């Protein structure tokens, strides 16, 4: 495509992207450098049906004046990024000096909210992404091998986890693993421990969410791989059969190299999706044991009656940076291939 045609073709999408993705990110970035103004409080008398007390309220008149003068808030620089609820630089320095062993230091650091969330998010990505690729590929291969007649219904059944709304899917599993649900109660019987709960144990909650993630995301990988498998040329495969290549050898030397670009694509998309893991945490009510970066943003925005815009913005920016770092190797590789292809 000539560059000029491409430009006009891409212009509407590009504009929409700038408007709905670019500008909000910039605005979030700016917000993350600001904190609220110092609260001006005054002592007043408060009366309710249970009696009167003297206590403090925010002085709205004074606050409005300051807000009107500086609507963005107080400039805080990287203050929000480095505070205890985010990168916690001071705390980490302190732990480093105070703790005696490296293990104790790690214990202390992983107790900080941001690092706790980061570790869960990364663990989730590292377990879910490869398993999704593998499972999706295996399903695609097996379905490609079954008779055409039953393929349709089978494909439909396979993509069902993706059709089910994430929240509904996780809720169904949530009730099944309840200590009185079908899975939860059976595990209790099996282990002979009436106090065993999939929901209260941190490790078991993580495993549950990861299994759910694999279940939910595999159909996506499967659909893409299945489509790619249809484009694999038959001649080299037939030639390989005549040469006596086994099924595994055919997959390794013909099919995989052929669909390799698609694998990269699915890996990229899965990584991005998984880094933003959020719905299962809400669906499984797993806030206590598993927190992801997206959940931290949500928590700052809605879980408290006071909305922490600065905190949420800072975590958002760090999530974007995190995704960029994760994707960098894959992107660099694709770019290199793109250049050599030309």
């Amino acid at each position, binding site marked *: 495509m000539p560059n000029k045609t491409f430009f006009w073709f891409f212009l509407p999408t590009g504009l929409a992207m700038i408007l709905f993705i670019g500008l909000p990110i910039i605005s979030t970035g700016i917000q993350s450098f600001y904190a609220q103004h110092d609260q001006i*409080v005054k002592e*007043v*008398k408060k009366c309710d049906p249970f009696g009167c007390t003297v206590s403090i309220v925010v002085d709205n008149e004074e606050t409005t004046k300051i807000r009107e003068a500086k609507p963005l808030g*107080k400039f805080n620089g990287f203050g929000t990024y480095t*505070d205890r609820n985010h990168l916690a630089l001071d*705390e980490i320095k302190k732990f480093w000096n105070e703790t005696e062993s490296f293990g104790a230091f790690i214990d202390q650091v992983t107790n900080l909210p941001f690092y706790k969330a980061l570790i869960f998010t990364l663990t989730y990505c590292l377990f879910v992404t490869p398993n999704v690729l593998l499972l999706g590929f295996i399903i695609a291969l097996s379905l490609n091998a079954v008779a055409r007649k039953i393929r349709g219904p089978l494909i439909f059944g396979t993509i069902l986890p993706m059709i089910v709304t994430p929240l509904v899917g996780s809720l169904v599993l949530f009730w099944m693993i309840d200590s009185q649900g079908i899975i939860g109660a059976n595990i209790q019987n099996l282990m002979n421990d009436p106090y065993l709960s999939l929901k209260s144990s941190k490790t078991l909650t993580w495993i549950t969410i990861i299994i759910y993630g694999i279940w939910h995301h595999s159909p996506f990988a499967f659909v893409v791989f299945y489509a790619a498998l249809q484009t694999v040329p038959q001649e080299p495969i037939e030639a390989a059969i005549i040469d006596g290549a086994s099924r595994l050898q055919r997959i390794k030397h013909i099919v995989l190299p052929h669909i390799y670009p698609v694998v990269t694509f699915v890996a990229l998309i899965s990584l991005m999706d998984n880094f933003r893991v959020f719905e299962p945490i809400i669906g499984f009510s797993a*806030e*206590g044991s598993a927190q992801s970066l997206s959940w931290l943003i949500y928590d700052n925005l809605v*879980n408290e009656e006071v909305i*922490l815009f600065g905190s949420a913005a800072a975590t958002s920016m760090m999530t974007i940076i995190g995704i960029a770092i994760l994707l960098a190797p894959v992107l660099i590789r694709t770019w290199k291939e793109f250049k050599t292809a030309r």
Partner: protein
Amino acid sequence: MRKILVTLLFLLFGTSAFADCNIKSGSINILANDFPALRTFVETSKQCKGSADFKVTHSSEHNKIAVPALTANPSEFSARIAANSSIVPLMNQDLIRPLDNLVKKYGKGIQDSQLITIDGKVMAVAFMANTQHLYYREDVLKDMGIAVPKTYEEVVAASEKIRASGKMKYPYAAAYKAGWNLAEEFVNMFIGHGGEFFKAGSAQPNINNAKGVATLNMLKKLSELSNPDYLTHDSEAIKVEWESGNVALMTLWASRSGTLLDDEGDAKITAATKLTGPATVGGGNIPAATLWWDGFTLAKNRSDADAEATFRALAHAASNKKMVADAADQAVWLVEGFVPGPKSIGVIEAVKMGAKPYPMLPQMGLMHGALGSEIVEFLQGKESAEQALKDVEAAYISKAKEQGFL
């Protein structure tokens, strides 16, 4: 013809019954939590909407939408049914209007005790009171020869006895869902121990002390007697546990007693369900519970005409003797004419025992939020009580700094 006549007569009669409001214009849009008493209250106010436009949103997620929805100008809602805690963010952001003039003009039946005044201005009109108190299974306690517990120490002893007998695996229940609910249980227990959340006259936290540790230890003991999934159980979930007959002792909101004791579910369990006041803890004499009021506030960013229409409709309900008589089971109404029934015993006992109201402080929401997420690891046995309290204070301080309180 006769049909039309009957309909016309009915219409005439129907309107004349509520003609006292006579609201001619304006639009009413209410945001409220979702439990039976609030539904009754809003329905009652709807009766006198006249020709005004009437909309309502009942949602248990009301806290999440309130501030953004009322910040918009004009705001999405003309009224918000709030409580001690949820009025604070509205006050902090200056999102609600003083009601003095409207009370003078249209608030004839409203009692003075219903008015929430802050700095001499009426900011809300309360209509019901609420608290968390004990529920017990009379049959189970009687069988085991256990007296009705008065303190949480007795609750623990009774639950242990029931468990040891093999009758129930998880005899105790309370809403310990990580987040707001769990933090609320901490607030109750900490106040029961005589704790103060902040150092006098400042926003500095004051929970990492012996009282805080005692609070956490008691919560842990109780959680060990609960269903192992307790960290995912909110009020609705423990209500279901109770109705399935899995629980003998429970701490739950008074406002939930209506649905707990209705005709749905096992009649035997319902008959044996009894209410009593909140328990004390650690030898203290005030209950480990907080008093709450529910009342209505009006949005500031909305036209005066809408505010007037909304106030008149809501004031109609907040002074409605028929409503409190018909729905006496649903809540402890603060409205004139309310005769407390057996289901109000929890709140009345709490007031008698000198329970404290939930602290209405600008920075309390941040403390509540920090508690909800930072004490979980202690309950899971992954952290010491001191460490958990240190974490709460640290998380609170960071948030309070960002918010400009420290």
